[in-house]
């Protein structure tokens, strides 16, 4: 416990100091925070519950659109804003901007949660690959449909309010960094406390054998919906922040981007190790570094690299980094190992 406390303190201090240590990487660090949030929350139902969803992008995109629309709609007519397509006919004052952002983020977190609760009963009744394909369809459908709605910009996109002039040039990057870092800390605390309760055991029981869990008297459907709602809450929040950070929302390329973000969150969680607390965090960090390297040096070939990466990770590392570590050093994970047994296994290999 004591060792962990020091670890957390170091990470927290590092996180708070990061934008001043690496001022050039503020946006990248904010995106990293968002990616970690997405991977960690995907892990709640993907890794712990065994419901591999491609559709969490739905909540992410929904949060993004909602946050931006609320932020604009609170003070200005939304239709005219999107009509003008990013020209500065309306300018938010700093107070309006921050008020709008705050209300927008609350809406962006709550509405996806409610949506997840409403559709959860129908969709979580599907199992295995049917759930995966159904959520894939849901995510793509949301992208296609939002691309046809006029008031949020349809095909031409939606420009989120530009950051107001509050004196210093660095303020925008710092604001979004601390916002996303705060969200990350919140997510981590929430997920960690969830993982120390009976709720996590129930989720694991559902993953291991849902029928038996039900036979043991667990109302599996209730817990599945709650698990998905928790995911949706943080996905929506992350989406809202990302919308402000990117500054421009497009239906299929930014918000409901199943080809990028929707796969990234699955991939990051698998790379790090499904069903562990630290796995998605490590996976997201490594993935982000790798991705940025590729995106910078091999521009144009990034999707080719992504495709190859998916295939390689899925085929050769389905257990991820944490799974590999666990196999190598089981004692560290609190597993009791019989030395003789282990030697016998090594000899067998």
């Amino acid at each position: 416990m004591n060792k962990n406390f020091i670890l957390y303190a170091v990470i927290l201090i590092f996180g708070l100091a990061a934008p001043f240590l690496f001022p050039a990487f503020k946006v990248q660090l904010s995106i990293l925070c968002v990616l970690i949030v997405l991977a960690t929350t995907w892990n709640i139902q993907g890794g712990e519950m065994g419901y591999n969803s491609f559709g969490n992008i739905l909540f992410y995109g929904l949060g993004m659109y909602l946050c931006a629309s609320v932020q604009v709609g609170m003070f200005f007519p939304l239709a005219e804003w999107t009509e003008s397509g990013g020209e500065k006919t309306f300018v938010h004052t700093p107070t309006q901007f921050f008020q709008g952002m705050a209300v927008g983020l609350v809406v962006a977190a709550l509405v996806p949660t409610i949506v997840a609760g409403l559709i959860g009963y129908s969709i979580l009744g599907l199992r295995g690959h049917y759930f995966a394909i159904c959520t894939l369809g849901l995510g793509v459908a949301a992208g296609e449909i939002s691309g046809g709605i006029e008031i949020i910009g349809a095909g031409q996109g939606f420009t989120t309010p530009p950051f107001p002039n509050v004196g210093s040039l660095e303020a925008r990057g710092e604001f979004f960094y601390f916002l996303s870092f705060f969200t990350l800390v919140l997510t981590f605390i929430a997920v960690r406390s969830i993982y120390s309760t009976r709720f996590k055991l129930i989720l694991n029981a559902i993953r291991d054998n849902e029928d038996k869990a039900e036979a043991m008297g667990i109302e599996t459907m209730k817990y599945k919906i709650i698990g998905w709602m928790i995911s949706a809450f943080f996905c929506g929040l992350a989406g809202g922040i990302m919308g402000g950070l990117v500054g421009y929302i497009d239906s299929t390329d930014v918000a409901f981007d199943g080809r990028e973000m929707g796969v990234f969150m699955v991939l990051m969680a698998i790379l790090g190790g499904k069903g562990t607390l630290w796995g998605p965090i490590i996976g997201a960090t490594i993935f982000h570094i790798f991705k940025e390297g590729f995106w910078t040096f091999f521009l144009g070939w990034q999707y080719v690299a992504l495709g190859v990466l998916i295939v390689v990770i899925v085929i050769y590392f389905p257990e991820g980094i944490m799974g590999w570590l666990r196999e190598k050093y089981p004692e560290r994970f609190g597993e009791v190992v019989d030395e003789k047994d282990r030697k016998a296994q090594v000899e067998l290999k």
Partner: protein
Amino acid sequence: MDFLVFQYPMITLQACLDGILLGVLFALIAYGMALQWGVMNIINIAQGDLVILGGYIAYFMYLYGIHPAWGVIVAPVIMYFVGIAIYKLVINKVVDRDLFISILATFGISILFMQLMNFAFGADVVLANSGYGTTMLFDNNVVLPNSKIFSAFISIVFAVCLVIYMKKSKLGRAIRATAQNARAAKILGVDTEKVYAATFGINAALCGVAGALISITFTIHPYMGLPYTIRSFMIVIVAGLGNLPGVAMSGMGLGVFEEFADYILGTEFRIGSVFLLLVLILVYRRFKLSRKREYLK
């Protein structure tokens, strides 16, 4: 939303005929998917991208002055080998694994193909002009391009040939045996590895035929693959594995649905409505089965 389409019987008829001709093509792709799903227990997300690749083969023949209809012969031959290559490189490592692994792996292949096609052929929407003209029916009120009729006819020919091949030939029997029980087939001397490779190759070849026909009748674009995958998945789950008349019927039904969605909701919601229909069908099946305390397997 406008429901004018139902007030003019000729437009309704036009939409129905268009939908049926389109649906036959979908059924051909879905047949390939049902084949490899049934035999190898793999859901291939890259199915649609194989279709588009087949389409580009026909398109290139058109660019070099060969009539694109010959693509119907050439595309499946090339695609068969592409399919075998994909099987050898990736699929054979995921055959016995969890279905989600295969979904994710083929999703990776799909992204890879999309981007490679984008590099190789450009991001333009293209079509291979067959120059077949049109057929007018009912006092020129219903217009059917001959290329659509041609493509539906060719699809039916290929499907019938394949059904006969699966019934009569040695490989066909081996494939069916493996689908029923891979282990027993292995014991009885069937080289299941070869059967799997051949199945995936045949699936890719069918996609190639469908793609060549799509490039003649409609348009192709490197990123248009995923809707074809979803359509074929939907057709297969509605019809059930190994139910050929069902695949044909639900393919046509889907085609008609799409045409009407196009008229009623507008073209921009066409793809969206396909994906929503998938969700609705799955949810409907789930509620129907949950009454018997079962779930989709």
